[in-house]
């Protein structure tokens, strides 16, 4: 990527964002017979991820040949997978494999971590998993963070990871966790890891922040890892007893619906998560699961 490509990319992204909220949201939403959301339960994180994507019509629906795809898991913490603080490495690995099999030129995995980056990448198991699958694991470089216009209701502009916005296709891969401020951290809050700057100031209006960020990064696909969920002491836990096995992966083209489904795993009412309603009002998706085409499977 040279500077010219970058400027064109940013300009294109800006234009796309300006004209219509759906411009980035992928094709699948408009395809009648396919569900907008797939929830698959099963023993193997890899198999249920594969199945969930298949239910949505396969990775080929979302990723084209030669695409540069960014996969954004939660790698925020220096914690092993059984602590359920970071996205399950098998889920990430499977997505990298699917993306590359769909003809993508590159599958880049990146997160702006909270603990020291290398420790998070290693202990989460994600670095090793991505390497095995042939993806590229990237550390966040300072010079690749740029203040960008978000045109949000709360965040007008913020420092954003260029590697994420420059992607041809974007897949959000959060993990479902307890959080003491926004109750649950699911897909929408995962975008904090695609920002730089003084992120600790977001908390003064966290619901508005996550909605503004969700409106800015529009992923083609959201894959919520609920294989093992964190039910207390979030967002990093620290004991296996803080987690519960749910052996589920929820994939969807509607990020709001994915989060709403995630909330149901914690028996949290959607109205307890104000950001879901705010996101719906902004046209980002639907949180009333009655209105969403969902396909549940058990394998």
């Amino acid at each position, binding site marked *: 990527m*040279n500077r010219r490509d970058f400027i064109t990319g940013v300009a294109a992204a800006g234009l796309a964002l300006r004209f219509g909220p759906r411009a980035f949201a992928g094709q699948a939403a408009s395809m009648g017979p396919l569900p907008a959301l797939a929830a698959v339960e099963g023993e193997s994180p890899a198999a249920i991820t594969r199945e969930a994507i298949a239910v949505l019509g396969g990775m080929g629906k979302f990723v084209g040949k030669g695409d540069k795809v960014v996969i954004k898991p939660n790698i925020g913490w220096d914690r092993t997978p059984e602590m359920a603080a970071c996205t399950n490495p098998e889920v990430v690995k499977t997505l990298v494999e699917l993306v590359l099999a769909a003809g993508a030129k590159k599958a880049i995995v990146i997160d702006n971590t909270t603990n020291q980056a290398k420790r998070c990448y290693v202990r989460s198991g994600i670095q090793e998993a991505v390497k095995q699958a042939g993806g590229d694991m990237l550390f966040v470089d300072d010079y690749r963070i740029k203040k960008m216009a978000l045109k949000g209701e709360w965040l007008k502009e913020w420092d954003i990871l260029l590697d994420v916005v420059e992607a041809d296709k974007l897949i959000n891969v959060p993990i479902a966790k307890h959080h003491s401020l926004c109750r649950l951290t699911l897909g929408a809050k995962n975008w904090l890891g695609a920002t730089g700057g003084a992120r600790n100031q977001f908390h003064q*209006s966290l619901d508005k922040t996550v909605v503004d960020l969700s409106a800015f990064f529009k992923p083609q696909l959201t894959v919520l890892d609920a294989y093992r969920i964190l039910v207390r002491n979030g967002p*990093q836990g620290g004991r296996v007893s803080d987690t519960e096995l749910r052996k589920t992966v929820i994939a969807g083209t509607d990020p709001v619906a994915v989060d709403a489904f995630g909330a149901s795993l914690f028996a949290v009412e959607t109205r307890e998560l104000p950001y879901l309603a705010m996101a719906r009002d902004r046209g980002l998706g639907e949180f009333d699961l009655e209105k969403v085409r969902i396909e549940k499977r058990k394998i």
Partner: protein
Amino acid sequence: MASQAIFFGLFLYLFLGAHYTGEDYIGSTVQRFFHFDPLLALVTIVSARLVYAYFAFALITVVATVLFGRVFCGWICPLGAVHQASSFVFKRTKFLKPPREDKTSLAPKYYILIIILVGALLGLDLAGYLDPLSFLTRSLALAVLPAMAQALSGLGGALYGLGAAGLARTLSQALQNWTINTTFIQGFSVGLFFLGAIALNARKERFWCRYLCPTGALLGLLSRWNLLKLKIDDEKCIKCGLCTQHCETQAHPYPNDQWKSGECIYCLNCASICPTAAIGFPMSARLEKLTNVSNVNLSRRKLLVTTLFGLVAAPFFRLSPPRKRAPLKLIRPPGALAEDKFLAKCVKCGQCMRACPTGGLQPVLTEAGPEGVYTPKLVPRIGYCEYYCSLCTQVCPTGAIKKQTIEAKNKLKIGSAWVNKSRCIPYVLGKPCIVCEEHCPVSPKAIKLVEYEATLPDGTTAVQKAPVIDLDLCTGCGICENKCPVMDDPAIFVTSVGETRSETNRLLLDISGGTSPDPYK
């Protein structure tokens, strides 16, 4: 010389390995060089009155020196290699023109050694300031490597700006993978001292080794009767004096009977520069006349005066308050011994600061009193103690920070966190925050949230979740202080009180939550 290059390379390789490589346990080889250093061994054992088994390696150096002289200085010492290389450059660039004969006194290093040894007897560990391994490691860790990393990072930025994005990326990613800390409170002065030590070579070849190095002095004392004796073949010698002029350490090869075996580092410059190849080092058990070997003029009176000087000066180090009462911000690394033993064992090498993955370990300037300069402390505003990391305890060469498994380390308190309610966002602004709570790594969390009703300037009230600390659970890791959004003076902060290693710096008798006050006993 090849041997020096090999050992310097080995030293650098081990030094660079002392960081988060991706492994939780990196083994003890990274600090092995230190264990061969007889000065560090002697001084830490004497000053702390504790034997540290790894220092058995120093006996190898002692035996080698007794048998073959200061080969350590000339063939192995990595700082010696730096000095020799820079001397060579200064000579080549004519900054340095060695005189025909140099009569400068070689005694200062012996005086330095005496003061260090007297200090050790009184429980002071001063060896680390001028010991070559400590000095070099500290300089590299706190100044040279960080400066190089910053320069490379700047280069990466420039490459990126010039359109070489791929190259810039490779460089910046590699830098992150090497986990090099680039922020050090005293990086500037440590760097200047290092440059200063190198610049001295423009005055005299191997200035440090000749006049300053206490380790060299100790080895010199051990090597006076070694087996490798310089021998000039009188029939070949043309008395040109080149050998004496180009002797790196002023050991005075010519005339033969003035050669000082305690100063010779066996660089073999004399032998190679001799136009008639008259100089050799045959094995010889013959005893030198004492006048020859000790013609570094160390009279008994001078030795006595230096010793007295040391005896009088050592107590000065103890006049500062840290000995009386633990300083607020002196947060020692986890596993650090109780303060008196820690000060007696720490050789100020900075290896722990190199290894710290967050860069939170910083050199002390004043907090620990004059004997604590360059010892490590955690500065949470720069970096915090990473929960699953015990690297600093693994790389300490002297056991001043006792080796810890991650599980054991997480049972140690290094301090306690406090909330400053007059600065904390929910308490003052009535706005949500909880950043400290979400970062607290222990489970259950040491930071609890309570509903707090803040009165705002306009008289209205706002209820928010506000942090309260459970001191029994807090380990003092400092991540709360590090991540607090109140940037200048964080509204939550860690102080040293409650640290497991101290029996006096406590708040409540049972603040450690059941762990014994000293887990090493």
